[in-house]
């Protein structure tokens, strides 16, 4: 894996491997000294053309816990103001010698564009491109559900709210369904994408009808700026039909989780009391975000390819010759029985 641009690039096995890796990094975060030297000397630059607090801080924390060096490129105080193009900006950053560029941009597809301009040596991580994708959010969301419930297989997950403008929803749908969950989008028609052809989801406009069957209710931020587009009559009406209140929580199953990618609008899509219930794992999502991004950065920057006998380690296996290490006549019979026994490729190759 050289870049993380989209959940579609990942197989179910890839996502599960990332989750397993995230377990190890979550343990690092729990230590009294939560820092490992794994990415010493690696340089990661944040290229954020759009506002972000939690994603950038979360990536920053992840990089620091891995001992990587970081640089921030903030558009407001840069040559972009003087009219420098995206391509020139990226090539300038590359020339300074970076190992990864974490990019957020208001236009969909920018991370692909950047990955195409760069040398293969530099990894690109999509931290949100327009309304398109936000893959690390989907990885941390699915990790949080897995942490709480063991697996996503067979879960029914409702994604509620402004799906149309949400990159989180797009990435989440891909990750949740790849892991075997069933997803229902719940929103007024104006807040759904014009076409859902090819989306592996069902759609409902009635939250109360869907709530009792949900294992997870995933709330999207009701973006206030959408109000100017008159997509909903009023925020109060949106809250009345699609907001999660204590009354609606009662309709949920006892073990159902409430999730939100943040930042929350308390009192709009989620009431203040619901956000603080034990079943709301919103704080866990933020905590898991750091471990998830550690796993992503480590997987992109910490891997090398070792060749033994001109082949990669995964293509090798070990043939044991028990007679050589086991001595004494008593072992002869057992030795013969074991002659030619093959064990997995990794065994013993480790120094």
């Amino acid at each position, binding site marked *: 894996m050289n870049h993380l641009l989209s959940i579609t690039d990942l197989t179910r096995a890839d996502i599960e491997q990332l989750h397993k890796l995230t377990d*190890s990094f979550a343990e690092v975060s729990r230590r009294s000294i939560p820092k490992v*030297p794994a990415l010493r000397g690696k340089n990661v630059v944040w290229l954020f053309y759009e506002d972000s607090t939690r994603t950038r801080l979360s990536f920053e924390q992840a990089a620091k816990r891995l001992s990587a060096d970081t640089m921030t490129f903030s558009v407001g105080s840069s040559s972009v103001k003087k009219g420098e193009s995206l391509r020139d900006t990226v090539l300038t950053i590359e020339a300074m010698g970076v190992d990864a560029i974490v990019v957020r941009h208001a236009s969909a597809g920018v991370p692909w564009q950047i990955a195409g301009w760069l040398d293969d040596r530099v990894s690109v991580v999509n931290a949100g491109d327009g309304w398109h994708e936000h893959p690390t959010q989907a990885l941390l969301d699915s990790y949080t559900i897995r942490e709480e419930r063991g697996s996503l297989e067979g879960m029914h997950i409702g994604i509620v709210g402004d799906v149309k403008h949400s990159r989180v929803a797009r990435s989440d749908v891909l990750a949740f369904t790849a892991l075997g969950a069933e997803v229902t989008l719940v929103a007024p028609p104006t807040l759904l994408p014009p076409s859902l052809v090819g989306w592996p989801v069902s759609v409902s406009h009635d939250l109360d009808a869907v709530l009792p069957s949900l294992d997870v209710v995933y709330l999207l931020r009701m973006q206030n700026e959408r109000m100017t587009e008159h997509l909903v009559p009023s925020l109060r009406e949106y809250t009345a039909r699609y907001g999660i209140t204590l009354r609606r929580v009662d309709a949920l199953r006892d073990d159902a989780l409430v999730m939100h990618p943040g930042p929350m609008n308390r009192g709009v899509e989620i009431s203040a009391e619901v956000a603080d219930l034990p079943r709301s794992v919103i704080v866990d999502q933020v905590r898991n975000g750091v471990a998830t991004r550690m796993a992503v950065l480590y997987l992109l920057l910490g*891997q090398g390819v070792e060749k033994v*006998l001109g082949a990669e380690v995964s*293509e090798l296996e*070990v043939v*044991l010759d028990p007679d050589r290490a086991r001595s004494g006549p*008593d*072992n002869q019979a057992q030795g013969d029985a074991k002659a030619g026994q093959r064990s997995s490729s990794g*065994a013993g190759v480790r120094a």
Partner: protein
Amino acid sequence: MDADDVRRAIWRMAHEIIEHNHGLDNLVLVGLQTGGVGMAEAFAEALGEIDVRTPPVGTLDVALYRDDIGIRPVLPEAVTDIPVDLDGAIVVLVDDVLFTGRTIRAALDALNAYGRPRSVQLAVMVDRGHRELPIRPDYVGKNLPTRRDEVVNVSPEGVDLGEVVKS
């Protein structure tokens, strides 16, 4: 070595650990992922039968501390679990095979994140030579001369030598 030899070596080393440390006070066994974990448990069982107490057992994955990150695929295999505070403890690191010593160097580095042990000792089932760092074991099951390109496989059923082939 066959299964009986491995079992006898564990018991001998367990006696040596108790003798060397005058008992099991503050002693913690830490098995290195993945080969040392089962061995650390075997040590705990043997020590528990020899002494009245069974020492706590932890596991350590040193992948994130290795010096060959970026040179070869290095992925953590399991979550590290250190159940007790290591400040002032006597840590016995347990691994199946001692080879270049680089895993042990990484382990010494990793232990720092969990506290400052009073002493760190090393128990291995097989010392196969070819050290690249000034590291030596305190307890050895068997010194086994090998070629660099050979593979040593240790399990409760015994110790085998082998070689790597393309599949």
